[in-house]
């Protein structure tokens, strides 16, 4: 075999490889930094080995952030999945309303999350925000949306849900459209009810598509930053300081670079582990769905 033939694919990926290295370099550099006590006040850092990590894990602030992050990610992913699948099912019916609304389904998804947070911040303002104004007739004025710990977390999740529910809905809708029709026709002939059909046919076959969406949403919301930064800045108190916000505060606000990066490395490990588990599960689910179809 001519060497030119063997070499060709490598030549084609070399630019991408170089660029990738350009992104990997800071990542590696960051990993290296975590072994030192590098900060703005200490530009000539000393090697501290794994001290940064041990500090992270012994800090109460870390465990608080980790807990908030998990609450946020699970809450957002859960609501988005249920709501997204419901919207997809509703849109899947051949009605005029559905066809019209489907066209504008993606709008919130295409708005920058930070802008979405700004929009909601204006609406949720307790005294002059429009949400409280609209709730007044129901005797619910004056809700302190982002000013209580629970309220702040729920509001952040609400913004996440507002932006990303269409993401789940779009993938679920694509899944619904690609399902084979024959099992449903068979079920209809057998006189199966709506609920039975949904639980025994639609859901198992749709699940792989939904799970792809869930994986994306769960892993993305583990590293949420924009929405919290713009909506609550982590407050009130520490109640919405998710891990990326904590890393930002440590590294950029307090300029303790090494320590801040340690936070993101830990987060990265968590995301990676979550991804492994979910992807493995996805494989299993896909096989099961294939069985239902046959």
């Amino acid at each position, binding site marked *: *075999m*001519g060497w*030119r*033939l063997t070499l060709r694919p490598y030549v084609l990926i070399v630019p991408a490889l170089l660029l990738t290295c350009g992104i990997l370099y800071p990542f590696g550099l960051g990993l290296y930094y975590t072994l030192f006590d590098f900060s703005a006040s200490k530009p000539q850092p000393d090697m501290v080995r794994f001290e940064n990590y041990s500090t992270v894990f012994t800090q109460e602030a870390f465990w608080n952030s980790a807990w908030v992050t998990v609450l946020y990610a699970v809450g957002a992913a859960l609501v988005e999945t249920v709501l997204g699948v419901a919207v997809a099912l509703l849109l899947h019916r051949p009605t005029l309303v559905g066809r019209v609304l489907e066209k504008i389904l993606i709008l919130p998804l295409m708005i920058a999350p930070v802008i979405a947070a700004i929009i909601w911040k204006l609406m949720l303002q307790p005294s002059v925000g429009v949400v409280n104004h609209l709730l007044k007739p129901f005797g619910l004025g004056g809700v302190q949306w982002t000013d209580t710990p629970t309220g702040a977390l729920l509001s952040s999740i609400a913004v996440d849900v507002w932006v990303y529910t269409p993401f789940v809905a779009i993938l679920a809708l694509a899944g619904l459209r690609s399902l084979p029709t024959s099992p449903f026709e068979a079920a209809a002939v057998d006189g199966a009810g709506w609920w039975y059909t949904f639980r025994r046919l639609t859901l198992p076959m749709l699940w792989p598509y939904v799970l792809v969406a869930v994986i994306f949403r769960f892993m993305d919301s583990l590293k949420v930053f924009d929405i919290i930064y713009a909506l609550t800045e982590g407050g009130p108190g520490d109640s919405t300081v998710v891990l990326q916000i904590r890393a930002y505060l440590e590294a950029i606000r307090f300029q303790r670079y090494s320590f801040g990066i340690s936070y993101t490395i830990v987060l990265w490990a968590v995301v990676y582990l979550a991804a492994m588990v979910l992807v493995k599960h996805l494989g299993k689910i896909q096989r099961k769905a294939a069985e239902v179809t046959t």
Partner: protein
Amino acid sequence: MITLSGIRKTYGKTVALDGLELEVREGEFFCLLGPSGAGKTTTLKTVAGLEQPDSGTVLLGGEDMRGVEPYDRGVAMCFESYALYPHRSVYDNLASPLRSPRYRLPAAEARQRIGAVAELLGISALLDRPVGRLSNGQRQRVALGRVLVRPAKAFLLDEPLSHLDAKLRQQMRAELKAIGEVRHTTTLYVTHDSVEALALGDRIGVVREGRIVQTGTREEIWYQPYDTEVARAFGRPRINLLPGVVTESGVRSDGGVELPVRSRATPGTDVLVGLRPRDLALRGPGHELTGTVYVTEVLGRSVEVTVRLGTGERRVSLVAPRADAARLRPDDPVRLVVRPENLLLFEADRPERPGRRIETER
């Protein structure tokens, strides 16, 4: 003209070609026959330079093709998928080779050439149509046209007729060999259809699991098949293979049927005797066998008769003229005639290894 020797090609752990040897002579129409997955397409692509063999050499016109790019090999290929450019018209598809740096023709000449080829294939009316709006038969003609439109040292045709319906396939089969370009150019033709191979091939190569099992003219393949599997591959209804044991005077099959095949095989060897349905008759000279009619099936002017041989359950099929078989009913006693020289003898089949043919003595 085309010589492949010791070609080995693997994809990961699957072996596609396992030491394939092949020689196609100048101007010959060579059919490569085999089931899907046998390595036929890989063979073609290896000749074309689209696949690089792990080992072995490809010679085209005596030249070693190692490291020679597909566009420098001067062969034309018709893909099973037709590989027409879906975004272009029929004309542009046919013109594609004539606009390439390698086979460029001045526009006027190209138009003339395309017109002639389109005329030949009966697709002149389709030239302005986008390929996406053609039927399978039309696509197949366009794909063939793209092969014929430019000069080529050899044509490589990969199951060009397989996607056509039966009637169209028969018609195209007849046309294909009548085309002058095809008659005069070395052609390597891949098919899984033995009828097609017998009808078209000057010589036939039978491929199995990445190797050529037998190469020969249709007569050689028909009368001297390499083993039972080759014998089974050709002829419909299939060859009858009767298990038996070699005796001093011939072979004795189940149910006490004596068959006059003599060979050097030692008496007592388990063998299979092959009788082609077309070589059995209900009357005429030859060795006689007795049996009872099992079932008859009318095939137009002839009848396929299945007969229970002797006293056993063993059945053979034969094809007889309608006049001879018209009055036969199930369970009627019949006499079958076979010419001893048409009998084939094989070793008994073993698992994973079809029985080889044993040379018979006339």
